[in-house]
């Protein structure tokens, strides 16, 4: 059965919406040729790579022992520790940066409460701590899955061939974890490249921060485009390398899982050490923001909060609807009519998601200024850009639903005398509805927290929760930023609690 043009048309539009701004960015940067000659790229590149490498290294050193403790040892409370360990990934990065800044320094929360004023971490160290605190769960999740899928008999076989614990780790376990390390590592590096809030608040000059400076203060379009292209190029390089290094699928574990190593008297100690990691990351934004928000509860900020919430909702809700509407035909196409073109469209959707938002957003800035200036910095454009950027997130649960819905089921219904419409209403719709809901919710919550795209494309006078949190923190006005940060952190944690429930539901 051939795919109808009603499927192709929206898919082609979505694919174009990803590709056009990126291509336009390329053209723009090439045109502004002289901008490439200006010095200063190499230090930016070096700092960007240094930050990515440092975050990745810390993430591996944290996630590997954490995953091993949770999967392979009789760690007390390992079930819910595994959940707790993942939660920080729901926090917006700038909220963690806020926490670090608001807690420290002479006027920080720590100084107010305990009279202890540790120096304010800024620059590299501050960015590094904040990024590690919310990216380590990506590696942890990957490594935990890979360790759980590793057949313990492989290690036994190596043992019977004369390999002790260290040799088994390096020759069996580590090679088996390689795909998980590369996959998780690529996600972490992409997050570091995509980050805007943390490096801007910490004033650590990476590509993102330089673009921010160019755009916000200096307004040199050519140079900003060239910087954005660098950033995009790095992200594409990571994606390509990840694809190349990932080895073909290996058979998973068929037998029972590995027995849990006893921890003995070290058990409670290990429990505390493991729990400390996510608790630190969660406390980072929640405690300082909670402290200031409670203190200022009666202030004028409260009046400002509903307005910002309303503005966030006015973008996030339509973006979620549009994203799901565009993802549905793409999910149907890629699962029911798979082929080169459907594959390309799916890959473009993921490209739009993996592209650093500053680069993606700048592409749209220039595109609209060149062809449709009346659209520049309007709500509809921001909604469109959100919908396209988050398309891949809406696509995930929908594709999973479609794949779980065998074509045979629809054929069986047809064989029982149901027409196309009836098949859709009685079979496909009820079965994919949870996927639509989950996808929409993921996009909605993502758009609520999103910062760089809003920063570039928001209409004048538009102050969403994320922008308000960022602006007040930028001005070192931590008490005023507190309610916004707190609300956004709770939105993130809420999504982390809600989405798995929705995706699981049958």
């Amino acid at each position, binding site marked *: 059965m051939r795919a109808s043009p009603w499927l192709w048309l929206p898919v082609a539009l979505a694919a174009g919406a990803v590709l056009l701004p990126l291509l336009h960015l390329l053209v723009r940067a090439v045109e502004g040729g002289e901008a490439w000659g200006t010095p200063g790229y190499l230090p930016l590149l070096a700092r960007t790579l240094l930050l990515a490498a440092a975050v990745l290294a810390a993430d591996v050193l944290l996630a590997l022992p954490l995953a091993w403790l949770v999967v392979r040892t009789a760690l007390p409370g390992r079930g819910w520790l595994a959940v707790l360990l993942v939660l920080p990934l729901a926090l917006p990065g700038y909220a963690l940066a806020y926490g670090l800044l608001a807690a420290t320094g002479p006027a920080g929360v720590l100084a107010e409460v305990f009279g202890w004023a540790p120096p304010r971490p800024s620059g590299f160290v501050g960015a590094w701590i904040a990024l590690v605190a919310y990216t380590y769960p990506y590696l942890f999740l990957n490594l935990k899955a890979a360790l759980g899928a590793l057949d313990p008999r492989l290690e*036994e*076989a190596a043992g*019977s*061939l*004369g*390999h*002790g614990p260290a040799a088994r780790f390096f*020759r069996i376990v580590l090679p088996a974890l390689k795909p998980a390390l590369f996959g998780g590592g690529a996600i972490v590096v992409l997050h570091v490249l995509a980050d805007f809030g943390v490096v801007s608040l910490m004033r650590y000059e990476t590509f993102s921060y330089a673009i921010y400076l160019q755009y916000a203060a200096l307004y040199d379009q050519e140079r900003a485009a060239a910087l954005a292209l660098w950033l995009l190029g790095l992200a594409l390089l990571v994606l390509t390398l990840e694809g190349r290094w990932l080895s073909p699928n290996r058979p998973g574990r068929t037998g029972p899982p590995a027995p849990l190593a006893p921890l003995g008297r070290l058990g409670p100690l290990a429990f505390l050490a493991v729990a400390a990691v996510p608790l630190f990351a969660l406390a980072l934004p929640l405690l300082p923001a909670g402290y200031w928000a409670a203190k200022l509860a009666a202030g004028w900020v409260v009046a400002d909060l509903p307005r910002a919430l309303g503005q966030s909702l006015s973008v996030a809700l339509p973006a979620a609807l549009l994203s799901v509407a565009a993802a549905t035909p793409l999910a149907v196409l890629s699962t029911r009519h798979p082929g080169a073109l459907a594959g390309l469209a799916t890959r473009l959707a993921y490209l739009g998601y993996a592209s650093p938002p500053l680069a993606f957003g700048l592409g749209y800035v220039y595109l609209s200024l060149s062809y449709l200036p009346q659209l520049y910095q309007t709500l509809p454009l921001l909604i469109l850009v959100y919908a396209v950027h988050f398309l891949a997130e809406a696509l995930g649960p929908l594709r999973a639903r479609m794949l779980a819905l065998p074509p045979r089921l629809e054929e069986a219904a047809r064989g029982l005398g149901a027409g196309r419409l009836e098949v859709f209403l009685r079979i496909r719709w009820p079965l994919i509805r949870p996927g639509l809901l989950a996808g929409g919710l993921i996009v909605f919550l993502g758009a609520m927290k999103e910062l760089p795209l809003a920063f570039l494309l928001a209409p004048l006078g538009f102050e969403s929760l994320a922008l308000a949190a960022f602006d007040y923190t930028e001005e070192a006005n931590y008490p005023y930023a507190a309610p916004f940060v707190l609300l956004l952190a709770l939105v993130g944690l809420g999504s982390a609690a809600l989405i798995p429930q929705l995706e699981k539901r049958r």
Partner: protein
Amino acid sequence: MSLLEVRELTKRYGRRTAVEDLSFALDAGEILALLGPSGSGKTTTLRLIAGFERPDDGWLRLSGRLLGSPERSLPPERRGIGYVFQEYVLFPHLNVYENVAFGLRRMAARERRERTRLVLEQVGLTAFARRYPHELSGGQQQRVALARALAPEPPLVLLDEPFSSLDAALREGTRREVLGLLRRRGVGTLLVTHDQEEALAAADRIAVLREGRIEQIGSPEEVYHRPRTAFVAHFLGSTNLLSGTARGRVADTPLGPVELDRAAEGRVLLSLRPEHLELGAEGAPVVVEARSFKGHDVTLQVRGPAGSFRVQADYRLPFRPGDAARLRARERAVVLVSPAERR
């Protein structure tokens, strides 16, 4: 001195006893089959010997050296015992050559290369050295697993149902080849299987396991012809059980007087294999209930006042369902140990 000596080995998981009071010995070049239904403790026994598990009681020695006891358990990497897993468990990130060379890392590079090549040649996989496990057929994977275990030249090899995932056409040939190779090399072999035919055909001795205990151990002929218990008689081939009253070497049974394999007194439980019964002109009256033609012979199900019996008959016998006949024993019946005596 035996190659492997196992004494009163016991392993418990929580309240469940997987292996209880297991004792046996194995000589170099000997093949001992551990036979039993699933859950009888066969694999646990192998894992205790390999060192993947620590015994709760008892001990085991290899060439006189103590390998494992509750107090002291040598880790598997220091035992030097070859292990072939049921699903082969080849290292997926290493090719055939690297898999086979895996256990040879303490050797000099040249020696390692030569040994690996030699072993690959012995199992006929030289041409596949650069392939990865997922590019091999089941039979080839099986041979890689064997080559990998044999390359370090262990004195003892443990085989955990190594032939069960091969299809029937491949199984017998592979089994003959593999066990032939092990025997020629003088390697002691423990073969875990739940396939009675495999155990009877391939092993020098069979240990029948039930619920973690050895029910009987002996040569295939001994175990088949003189099963100690009803469980062994049933598990190895099929049998007819009948009770009788013994007076020395003869017992009164529903089939009439039957000669016994050993002297006994009082109530006894007897085992008579289908091929140890015959239909003819003498004996207890029976009626043929069912007939199943097996190609080389015919099995008849008969019933009479004496009970229901399975008889193996000559293919020339003309009996059909509904025919009347007479049944008698043509061999001595085996006196079984009663469950009470078993422990």
